C-alpha cells in the first residue's frame, strides 16, 4: 500500500470513529449528520485543524518556536495538548487553545496531521 493510500485509509477509519463517538453525539449544537458527509473525508481537515497552520507552519522552511504538526506522531500531539490543558506543560497560548477542544476533537486533529505529508 502506498503512503497516500494508507493515509486515506487512516482518515477513513477515523471519520467513522468520529461520527460514532459518543462525545460528538452529546454536543448541544447540531450533530455531525446534519452537515453532510462524515467529517474527515480525505483531503478535508477535521473541525479546528485548518486553524492550526496559522502558527504551526505547513512549510518546513519557516523558523518559529511552534513546530510543524504535519507528519508528527498523533499520540505525541494528543499527549502534548492534554498536558497543555492540564497545566502540566508550560505554554504560551496552547493552554488556552487546548481548552477549546474535546478529547475526540483533538484526536481527530492529531490523526489528520499525522497522516499528512
Amino acid at each position, binding site marked *: 500500500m502506498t503512503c497516500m493510500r494508507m493515509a486515506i485509509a487512516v482518515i477513513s477509519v477515523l471519520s467513522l470513529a468520529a461520527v460514532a463517538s459518543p462525545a460528538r453525539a452529546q454536543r448541544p449544537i447540531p450533530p455531525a449528520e446534519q452537515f453532510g458527509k462524515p467529517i474527515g473525508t480525505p483531503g478535508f481537515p477535521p*473541525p479546528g485543524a485548518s486553524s492550526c*497552520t496559522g502558527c504551526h507552519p505547513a512549510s518546513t522552511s519557516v523558523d518559529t518556536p511552534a513546530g510543524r504538526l504535519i507528519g508528527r506522531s498523533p499520540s505525541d500531539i494528543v499527549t502534548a495538548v492534554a498536558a497543555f490543558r492540564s497545566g502540566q506543560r508550560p505554554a504560551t497560548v496552547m493552554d*488556552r*487553545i487546548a*481548552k477549546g477542544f474535546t478529547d475526540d476533537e483533538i484526536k481527530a486533529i492529531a490523526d489528520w496531521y499525522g497522516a499528512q505529508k
Partner: protein
Amino acid sequence: MIRSPTRRHFLRTAAASAAATLPIPALAQAAGGRVVVVGGGFAGATCARALRQLDPRTAVTLVETSQTFTACPFSNEVIAGLRDIKEQQFDYKSVAADGIVMVFDQATAVDPHARMVTLANGDRLRYDRLVLAPGIELRFDAIPGYTEAAAERMPHAWKAGEQTLLLRRQLEAMPDGGLVVIAPPANPYRCPPGPYERASQIAYYVKTKKPKSKLIILDAKDQFSKQRLFEDAWKELYPGIIEWVSLSMGGKVSKVDPATMTVETDFEKHKAAVANIIPPQKAGRIAELAGVADRTGWCPVDPVSFESRLQPNIHVIGDACIAGAMPKAGFAANAQGKVCAAALVRLLAGQQPDEPRLINTCYTIVAPEYGITVAAVYRPSNGQLVEVQGSAGTSPVEAPRSTRVEEAKLADGWFKTITGEMFG
C-alpha cells in the same frame, strides 16, 4: 463583454507566470466550479489558496487592486522605527503559481442574480460562488473634520502602506516635547488591541528618542482588549509617558482640525504634534455595492459557511463580516478563509458544509522582546460564532519576563508562518 475569467486571464498571464508550468485549472476541469475571490489579504488570499489545495478542480480567480500586499500586523513596529516596511510586503507570484488567476483590478459591482462581478476596466467575471474579503473602509463621515484629506495630516495608518510611513515620518520630525495623540474608535473595528500596541510602540520611540514627549490616548470606549496587560506594561516600561482617557472620562473625540493640529473632545482641546486618528470603520466598499452589508456597515454571515445572510452564493470573510465573538484580526481572517474554502468545496459538490471550529490568537508586541496574547476557540451556536467555554483568555497578568520574551518570539514566528501560508 462576458467571459470566463479563468481562461482569459490565465492566457494573458501564462507566459510571464510560473503558472505556465501547471495544468490549466478551469478549462479542462470546470467540474469543481468557479469561485471568484475579491480581496487578497489575510482572508482572501488564504481562502483562494485553500480552495486550490482542497479541490484542484476549482477554478479560482483572485481580484485584488494592488500588486503588493502590505500587512498590518507588526506595522506598528515600522511606525516605531524598529522594522522596515519591506518586511510587511508580499507579492502574489506564489499565489498565481498555485493556478489561481490573479486579476489586478478593482471590483466595482456585483450582480448576485446573474452571479457576475464587474471590474473597473469593464470586464465581467462569472462565478458559481463569490467570496468577498474586502477588509475595511474608513468612515470619513464619522468625526467632524476628519476627512480623507485630513488623513494626510492626521494619519489613521489603519491600512498599512503609505499611511504607516507617513505616521513614521511625522514622529521622526516631531520636536522633543511634542504631544502625540492617538484616538481609537468604538467597537467593532479592525484589530482591537492595535491602537494600544501602537501606543506602546510609540511610547518606546518616545522613551528612547524624544524623552520630553508625551502620548495621550483619547478613547471612544471604556474598556479595551488586553487592558490589564497593557496597563501593567505601560506602568513598568513607560511610566509617565502614556495617559489613557476613557469614554466616561471624556475621551471621545468630537472634532478635529488638521490645519491647527487640534483634537477636541467635549471637555478639552489638545494641540498635537502628531495626531493618529483611527476613525470608525465599515466593510470594504464592494460589500455595500453587492448588497451584503447591513445597516451597521458590516456583513452578517452564516457561521458555518460564511455565506451572506443577505445575498445567495456570496460569502464574506475577514474584517468585513460579522463573525460573532471573533475579533477582526489577521489570524481570525486566515482561519475563516480556510473554513470558508472547505465550505465552498462542499457546497459546489452539492454537499452540506462541516460544522467548523476556528481559532484566533492576537499577538501584541508592547516593546522589543515583550509579547502578550489573547486567544480563543470559536464554534457556531444559535447562528453566531461563540467562544468555546474555557478557551478564551489572555496571557497571565502576573508573569515573569521570560513569558513575555517567549510570546514575542512566538509572535515573530506567527507572522512568518501566516504570511508564508498566504504568500510563500
